[in-house]
């Protein structure tokens, strides 16, 4: 279901991610993933290996033992300007677009194309879940009042100090929208590094949906439906002043 595109002249998006988790694939598939660079050399020339390291130490009256284990997890591919990258892993796929972010369609289309490539190399997969994530940094003057910028913020009783040096809130909320289905929104806020006279407020919206064994067709219809949900939530979290600031 297509949604009206949301456009701001000063978009606060620092990163957008579409991620699809799959049931763990056999380790042998890593050899197939290693053939993937030849198909993306032009657009994603930088490839790096991803591995998982595990160290286990055991101390008990009977024995003391330590072991280390490392296994290949997949590959990460980056564009020449490092603004786009994707990961092809044994446990899933993710596509990342760093700022400047243009709009949903090219972002989604690129993720869709790369997912198809991933599927071509790894063969059949069982999807577990998918997520769409928007990491925003809202630059505002400081000092200032949070309520001038956000409609989701910590409430403090007047008896305690009102000046925040930093804060961290994370809220998990149920989602149940037509098209995208049942899911969870995890909204995270904190203050990021910023320059004097300004504050940079992280507004990190993660939309996560269970999608057990769904077909590719259903999967992408549901991902497409998240566009309207993420736009609605993002706009709802901002005050009119903040919307004006990024317009």
């Amino acid at each position, binding site marked *: 279901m297509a949604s009206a595109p949301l456009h701001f002249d000063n978009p606060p998006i620092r990163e957008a991610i579409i991620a699809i988790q799959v049931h763990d694939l056999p380790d042998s598939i890593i050899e197939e993933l290693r053939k993937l660079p030849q198909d993306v050399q032009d657009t994603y020339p930088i490839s790096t290996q991803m591995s998982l390291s595990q160290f286990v130490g055991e101390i008990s009256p009977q024995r003391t033992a330590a072991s280390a284990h490392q296994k290949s997890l997949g590959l990460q591919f980056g564009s020449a300007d490092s603004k786009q990258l994707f990961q092809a892993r044994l446990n899933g796929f993710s596509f990342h677009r*760093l700022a400047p972010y243009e709009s949903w369609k090219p972002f989604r289309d690129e993720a869709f194309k790369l997912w198809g490539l991933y599927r071509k190399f790894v063969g059949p997969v069982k999807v577990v879940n998918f997520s769409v994530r928007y*990491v925003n940094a809202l630059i505002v003057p400081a000092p200032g009042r949070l309520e001038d910028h956000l409609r989701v913020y910590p409430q403090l009783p007047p008896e305690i100090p009102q000046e925040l040096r930093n804060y961290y809130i994370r809220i998990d909320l149920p989602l149940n929208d037509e098209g995208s289905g049942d899911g969870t929104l995890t909204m995270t806020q904190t203050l990021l590094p910023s320059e004097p006279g300004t504050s940079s407020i992280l507004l990190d919206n993660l939309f996560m949906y269970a999608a057990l064994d769904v077909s590719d067709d259903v999967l992408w219809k549901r991902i497409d439906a998240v566009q309207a949900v993420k736009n609605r939530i993002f706009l709802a979290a901002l005050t009119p002043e903040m919307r004006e600031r990024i317009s």
Partner: protein
Amino acid sequence: MPAIAMSSRSVFSGPRYVAGAEIAPSGPSWKILEFFQRFIAEAGSTSKFLQMARSYQELRSSLEVCAGLGDDWDSYGAAKPSKHSIEAADRLLQRLFAELFMPSRVIPSAEGGTALYFNSGNKTAYVEYRNSREVILAMFDDHGDPIIVELTESDADESRALSLIRSYITS
């Protein structure tokens, strides 16, 4: 209603000038840094932007350490990085974070000054702000001769340096 405190250098790791060899952050600013790092460790595992934000914090801390060095910090007679070289490196670091292109390290220069290093595979590039106000860009790998470019601190030269580093590192 909660208000955001005035952001300040003490909170987000700007250069400070402290006698002695090393700055030991203390008090609220360090606690905030710990808080931030803890948060980033949780959330940054999948977001490249948040990984860069953590890297930026760490590099600003390295710059603080450079700012706190004294003369002969390397025991071979190197001059301490000048205030000017620290500020120039700080400006470039801020710009790099804004452009989401992070260096690997910030270190003092044995020539006297401050340098930002970029590493990728066997390729290395660095921009060095010398106490003498010279700005040097060097790019090298395991094989060929190093490429050395003399620059100024102008915006145009900074842009040129970043463009050269990007294309060298990613080629």
